[in-house]
């Protein structure tokens, strides 16, 4: 195998150079070479002549080598250390509504806990009739459900409160992912323990070195929360809480406790670090909102965007983006190409599920002139995505969390895209 690669690689490099030059020539001279044709068609290519890897070469498949740039990225200045930090989903490289498992953004408070599932337990204690311990095998004996939900960090777009700062939807909006979870309803587990009448709150705790904890009202816990052990059909990834995580649909990502090991039932919230000093929203008057759990209606255009400029020139083009709401499903997305002067209903394609990402498209002919692209989502509860000005006028610039304001991308005549704020 190694020998053959050595034999093949010079011609492969030759193709790459020739191919790029050919493409450049075509782009600059139009159809000047049309009589000869493109080499990728007229020349027999390596992959067309020589067999490739067999089925044993890639027992767990990876994306094409030509997609190696499609990765999560960190913004190092945001946090002190990468083990208590965040990285961002490359939204501009994805389509549809499902995020591939390896590209789901990560946020850890003490790194990734690596837990052998046989050593993991889930305990229910507190105001219950029976304090219980479950193994992972136990959990898989409860009735299972499959649900698609987005998970958005409350701090998504948090760096944009004071104005345009980061050039790329990966960085402005990439603290979000959307996968299909398999798991059991939290309700079944709590019923198995028997919640006492006074049990109005739930404390969920992780097994990692931050022992992450959040208080969740019992009403939500019994409504639609899940304990998930799979995402997109396979076991949770370690960075997403393997072997089990809490799923809290539509609510801020910090509450979706990873490496879930304990659920305590109580009669009051615990006021833990992540629900007092963090994940509270400071207003201009010095007051701070707490218990701001729901993720508001929001959208962003993912293509074009600063990391995904228009490279094809004038003519037919596809604008694409994502919309979501923690209140329910998205009923409509409007798109503007002139900075909010005029709006056009976008086309939502694919499943429209409550508290899941929605994919929208708007097709139009670009005449090569400057564009100011915006999208505005409306959810099925009637909430309309606000402008950043509207949010700042009510809250000031220091909330950090829950910035769902309308994003503007400026496109110049060359198709280069920049994050801007406009009049």
């Amino acid at each position, binding site marked *: 195998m190694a020998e053959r690669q050595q034999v093949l690689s010079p011609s492969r490099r030759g193709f790459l150079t020739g191919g790029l030059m050919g493409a450049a020539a075509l782009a600059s001279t139009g159809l000047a070479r049309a009589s000869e044709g493109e080499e990728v068609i007229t020349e027999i290519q390596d992959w067309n002549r020589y067999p490739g890897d067999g089925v044993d070469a890639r027992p767990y498949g990876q994306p094409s080598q030509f997609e190696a740039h499609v990765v999560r990225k960190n913004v190092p200045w*945001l*946090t002190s250390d990468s083990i208590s930090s965040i990285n961002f989903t490359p939204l501009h490289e994805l389509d549809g509504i499902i995020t591939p498992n390896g590209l789901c953004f990560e946020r850890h408070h003490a790194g990734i806990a690596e837990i052998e599932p046989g050593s993991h337990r889930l305990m229910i204690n507190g105001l219950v009739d029976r304090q*219980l*311990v479950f193994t992972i095998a136990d959990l898989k004996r409860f009735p299972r459900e499959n649900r698609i939900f987005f998970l958005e960090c409350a701090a998504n777009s948090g760096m944009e409160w*004071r104005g345009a700062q980061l050039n790329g939807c990966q960085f402005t909006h990439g603290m979000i992912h959307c996968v299909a979870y398999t798991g059991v309803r939290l309700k079944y587990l709590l019923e198995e323990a028997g919640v006492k009448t006074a049990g109005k709150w739930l404390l969920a705790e992780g097994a990692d070195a931050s022992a992450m904890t959040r208080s969740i009202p019992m009403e939500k816990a019994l409504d639609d929360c899940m304990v998930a052990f799979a995402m997109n059909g396979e076991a949770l990834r370690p960075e997403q809480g393997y072997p089990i995580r809490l799923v809290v649909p539509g609510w801020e990502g910090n509450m979706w406790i990873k490496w879930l090991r304990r659920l305590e039932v109580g009669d009051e919230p615990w006021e833990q*670090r992540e629900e*007092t000093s963090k994940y509270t929203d400071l207003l201009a008057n*010095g007051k701070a*909102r707490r218990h701001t759990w729901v993720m508001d209606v929001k959208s962003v255009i993912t293509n074009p965007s600063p990391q995904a400029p228009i490279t094809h020139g004038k003519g037919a083009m596809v604008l694409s983006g994502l919309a979501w709401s923690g209140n329910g499903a998205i009923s409509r997305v409007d798109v503007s190409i002139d900075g909010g002067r005029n709006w056009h209903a976008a086309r939502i394609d694919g499943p429209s599920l409550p508290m899941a990402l929605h994919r929208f498209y708007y097709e139009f002919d670009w005449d090569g002139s400057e564009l100011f692209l915006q999208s505005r989502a409306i959810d099925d509860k009637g909430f309309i995505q606000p402008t950043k000005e509207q949010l700042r006028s009510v809250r000031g610039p220091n909330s950090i969390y829950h910035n769902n304001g309308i994003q503007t991308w400026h496109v110049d005549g060359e198709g280069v895209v920049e994050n*801007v704020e406009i009049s």
Partner: protein
Amino acid sequence: MSRFPELVLAVALLVAPASISLAAQDAPAAGKFGIGREATPEEVAAWDIDVRPDGLGLPEGRGTAAEGMAIYDENCASCHGDFGEAVDRWPVLAGGQGTLENERPEKTIGSYWPHLSTVYDYVRRAMPFGNARSLSDDDVYALTAYLLYLNDIVDDEDFELSKENFTSIKLPNADNFIEDDRESEPHYADKSDPCMSDCKPGKAEVKMHAAVLDVTPENADDSAPQGGID
């Protein structure tokens, strides 16, 4: 037997968990599905270390601010600074009182946190960073007392914090938290159909470029901007 003490120990360790499983099978949980086993009191005690603002969950113990200073200098100062002012982007713990309405508010235990119980709970479960659960309950009382001292909430280094006096301490910003009222904001309260054409006068003009303050990772220089997420 005496020639193989390690073997005896190993067998004992193997048998012990199995006997717990057997006990669980003998007395199945009484829920609808009959799945899981009852947690032992020792197991609950090992994990249930959370502390609430009303003091529920506080362990027995005590410690003074002066004792806390020694523990702090050894375990905490390398990240949080000698006086809680923080190193690099690690959390600031002290100071900042009266800054919450400023352009750059400084949110610390003294200026922002509503409950002292959160300090005790968090330090006990997650600090020091990199060696969680290594401090004794008395150590955590002493550290909490010292953090009160660094924040000028107590002014006597001999101040002793204990389970008994813990809930008598109120943090200065406790009354400045309000419940979520986002739905009452004008842009959410107004559910009329939004404008679709000629919604704003004139052509859009750029007011701010991200490129002016380009901190996108591929392009950023070494100067980090203000305002992290943590």
